[in-house]
């Protein structure tokens, strides 16, 4: 029994580490879609020259999106199938889930927009870009607040 608990703990720690690493690189490369890293010398730091290459940062951002989507659906369905009787989303969990959903949804629309022969209206594209940026900043801020206040995603049912 304790062996099962230990393996579950290791599994969730692995998922958490992968999730945090993915978020970190997605945020880093996402902000890198604006021409700021070269202007503000960050890409001059040895080992970080790739931050000034928009194609590299775009590809890393896209790979991060693939991993994040897989993780989010894995965790969400695992929660629905296995854990909903033992735990439920806390208030802060709902806020973060809503913000993450908004970020993923707007990001997915941007990916669609970037496909060939896809046209969104000019105003919608501008709103989408700003919404995605604002959503990410709100999500990161919410996570910082939750980290400081030690709020968890779930609470006992």
């Amino acid at each position, binding site marked *: 029994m304790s062996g099962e608990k230990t393996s579950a703990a290791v599994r969730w720690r692995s998922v958490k580490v992968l999730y945090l690493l993915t978020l970190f690189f997605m945020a880093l490369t996402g902000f890198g879609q604006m021409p700021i890293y070269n202007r503000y010398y960050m890409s001059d730091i040895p080992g970080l020259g790739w931050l000034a290459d928009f194609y590299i940062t775009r590809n890393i951002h896209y790979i991060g999106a693939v991993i994040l989507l897989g993780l989010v659906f894995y965790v969400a369905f695992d929660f629905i199938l296995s854990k909903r009787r033992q735990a439920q989303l806390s208030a802060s969990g709902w806020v973060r889930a809503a913000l993450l959903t908004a970020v993923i949804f707007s990001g997915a629309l941007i990916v669609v927009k970037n*496909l060939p022969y896809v046209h969104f209206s000019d105003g919608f594209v501008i709103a989408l870009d700003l919404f995605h940026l604002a959503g990410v900043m709100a999500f990161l801020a919410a996570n910082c607040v939750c980290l400081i206040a030690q709020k968890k995603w779930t609470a006992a049912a």
Partner: protein
Amino acid sequence: MNPLISRRMFLKSGIAAAAGAAATAVPGTQALAANDDRGYLATLIDIRKCIGCEACVEACREANAPKFPAPVKPFPKMYPSRVKVSDWSEKRDVSNRLTPYNWLFIQHATVKVNGEDTEITLPRRCMHCVNPPCVKLCPWGSAMQMENGLSRIDPDICLGGSKCKNVCPWDIPQRQTGVGLYLKLLPALAGNGVMYKCDRCYDRIARGERPACIDACPEDVQTIGPRQDIIARAHAVAKEIGGYVYGEIENGGTNTIYVSPVPFEDLNRAIAKGDGFPHLNPVQDAMADANNFAAAMVMAPVAGIAAAAVRFLKTRSKAEPPGSRREG
């Protein structure tokens, strides 16, 4: 077998397999080249006919003069010091390269044709890519692609960060400092003006007219029409003269198709290259990776759900006492 490793491996391999499968599912360049009947307008530029008279250049400057930048001076001080002013307002007459005030110029190349040195001239401007990186990767949506496939930059929204130029395979857009939205935001810390490039006279096309450069050409060097027709015509001309085509598959396909009697490698070697002087190299599809990863994103949720379902079924089968399952 350790069930933990098994499930993790499943999750990891599921995502990897999805990414791998998708990465080979959509060949970017070929897919674009094969699907060009979407109502996009393209231009055929028959290099044989160009005499380098610059009538197109003059017509472009005249037609687009109202769109040219009128910068406010003195320019605001920008930080950090590596951010350089890009000012063409005192050099508006420059017409032998791309500038914010010159969106089309004539490129010269001296090449051997039938053993003789021959000067070839060709108009150069934005290629108007089918899937333009300048538009797709603009972080603010200030670069846009119209329904007819032509791309342009909105000077009221552009902040002049020059990302469009950075991602353009031909480095086409040109920056003018001291103009645009950035002046009203944080001019010292973000932005640096507005980027300018050929907009294919979108306003004239909207009025049912042809782009100014096409109308002004005395030799009918350029022809505009549906992309499929233009490509068919380009190949017909190339076949007739034993010539070469450029722009059909470059960067996954563009809406500017050149036909030349000499190989473009020869022309590329002979032309001046650098900032404001676009090359004629072969160009891979800059957006192909994005298209492939997009396909992987469709598969990723499936992999995640499958991994969760496998874990759930394994956990449940373990929880059931041996012999509780009805034997068939």
